[in-house]
């Protein structure tokens, strides 16, 4: 019973780690994305840099995922 509860909490923790970081990445990306599109409208050459800037906050959710994977598979 105790083991089952612990497994449940680990799964919950993993879910929270991915879910919250996903929200964070989304909030970060929305304003960068809008600004990047604006810059691209002025100068299409900005596409590469714009894409790069836009996906930078995505690392946050990857960190969340790493935490989740470590929780699920290492502990």
């Amino acid at each position, binding site marked *: 019973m105790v083991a089952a509860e612990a497994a449940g909490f680990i799964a919950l923790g993993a879910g929270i780690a991915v879910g919250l970081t996903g929200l964070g990445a989304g909030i970060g990306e929305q304003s960068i994305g809008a600004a990047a599109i604006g810059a691209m409208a002025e100068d299409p050459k900005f*596409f*590469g*840099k714009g*894409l*790069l800037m836009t*996906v*930078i906050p*995505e*690392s946050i959710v*990857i*960190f969340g*995922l*790493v935490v989740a*994977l470590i929780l*699920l*598979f*290492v502990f």
Partner: protein
Amino acid sequence: MLKPEKMTRVVVVGTSDALDQTIENLHKLNLLHIIDYDEEEAGFKIGKPGSMAPKFSEHLVTLRSIENQLGSREEAGFDKKISAKELPSQIESTLSELEEEVLKQHNLMRSIETELKQNQDIEDTIKPLASLPLSLEDYTGYQSINVFVGFIDSNIEDEIKAETSQYELYTGEIEGKKIIAVAVAKEKEDEINKILQNDSTYVEIRPPELTGNPQAVLEEMAAAKAELTEKLANAESELVRLKQEYAEFMLASEEYLTIETQKSEAPLRFATSDHAFVVDGWVPLDKYDDFEKTIEGGAGNVYASKLEDEEVKDVPIALDNPKAVKPFELLVDTFATPKYKEIDPSLILFITFPLFYGIMLGDIGYGVLLGILSWVIMSKVKSGGLHELAIILSYSALSTIFFGIIFGEVFGFPLFNITHHEIVEGGILGIAGPNIWILQLPIHRFAEVKPLLVMTFVIGILHITLGLILGIRNVAVERGFKHAVTEKMCWLMILFGGIMAIVTAMPAILWGSVLNTQDPIFVSGIVLGIIGIILLVKGEGAIAIMEIPTLLSNIFSYARILAIGLSSAGIALAVNTICRDVLFSQGGVFIVVGILVLILGHTINLLLGIIGPGLHSLRLQYVEFFTKFYEGGGTKYDPFGFIRKYTEE
């Protein structure tokens, strides 16, 4: 490969009488990247455009406006080249005729459309009146009577009666709404109007000044409308006919006029004096001999010469890669064109992009579908960015199939038998995976998360190390080795020092075992890292310490290689489980539903599978890899000339 094509600075000098022939030769060669002259030197002025230039551009503007009016250009079904010698006379005679015809049809269409709109307006107002027992001329044109018409819900006859006895009221109904017409004497007009306006359901109608029975008028209108619509369709089909008939002519003459405009405006980029001209530019080094021979042999007093010691600044960049690697130049150019002395990373992308893509998607079924998709795009679109993307996709498809075999996945179903928690799940082939070298196939992604996660970190470390090594090379070439050490080498030292320290300390961090601080690997790692940090602070200031954690985040970022793969394999597995265990087992109509779910689920997953791995593989290149060495900012090599598609000389 790895470096842009070598260029040489060239100056072409000649006497004015040879100008036209030289422009002709330069254009045909399509080699010289001209540097526009900006009137810096005394005695030389910017040249004057050829006498035909205004006429060519005028024709070009006319032609493009015609093309706009006729809609998008279609390039299919055109393989016979038109001779450029016959075109000028054809353009003179045909262009204005075509313009007139297109304009005529366009104006006709516009006037028909206006008329249709007016008809529609009148029709809308007459329609309600048809339900009243009055002719259209009964509503207007009285001296002592006024007629109010409108929709109304409530009964207001009593109110009117209270105001005056001299009135006539007609009612009708159309589409469930009540409509009334009230005729009253002029002197009571204001009072009645007030009663009507005070009623909230009243909507006034203004009858048009027409005569006759409304029903008959409506029928007339409908007939006129049909006639106008037919005329409109005729004009439209006439435009389509013109477009088809003159498609070849328009494509060929646009090309011809573009070329002639380029040629006749070329002197605007040259330096000229009263009797001579000078053209400055860049030519690929290995093509210079041909260039010199053609230019000097072609026309009178013209000489070309190399400027050997010219400082290497603003050299136009022509990327130089084998045919297989060419498509990846698109990805490099999208980020930025490299500088002349920088490494051109196309070749590295050629290897790593499909590799990452394959590990992420890793499914034989999806790989085959992607391969077919890329083949279809390649055969439909013969050139341009989409064609190159399709080639990149086809490499990625091969890599996806390869890793699909390693992971043993076909549309999320196992290819080989897999044993998970001591339960054997039968695969499609019904055999256990083969043992190749030290690798026991298949590597089941859900069962082997931990080793695969470590593998992604190793890939990340290798990729970033490669980036930093290229960075050392780029900085060393541009600013000297000392800068390379304090800007890039220090990062390499911090990276490896950090890895050595963290790997030895890992057991202590995770499971609380005792950390052996005497471990030589741990100690040398710490020392290496500290030396790296000192060099970094020396090179970029103390603020750069803030950036050290990004190294860690960069490496963690490669976890997405596993993450994207798990999510796509997870979706495939979910779809299969729903179909096989939930729907198919119930039989009957559920089998049909199951097949639909199967097709829909895998289509969505495949679409996600194209976008997700593509973008994330690219992001790893752009954000994690390129930032270590790549600056970009070069000018693209754009030679003076034109590749003829529709005309020939």
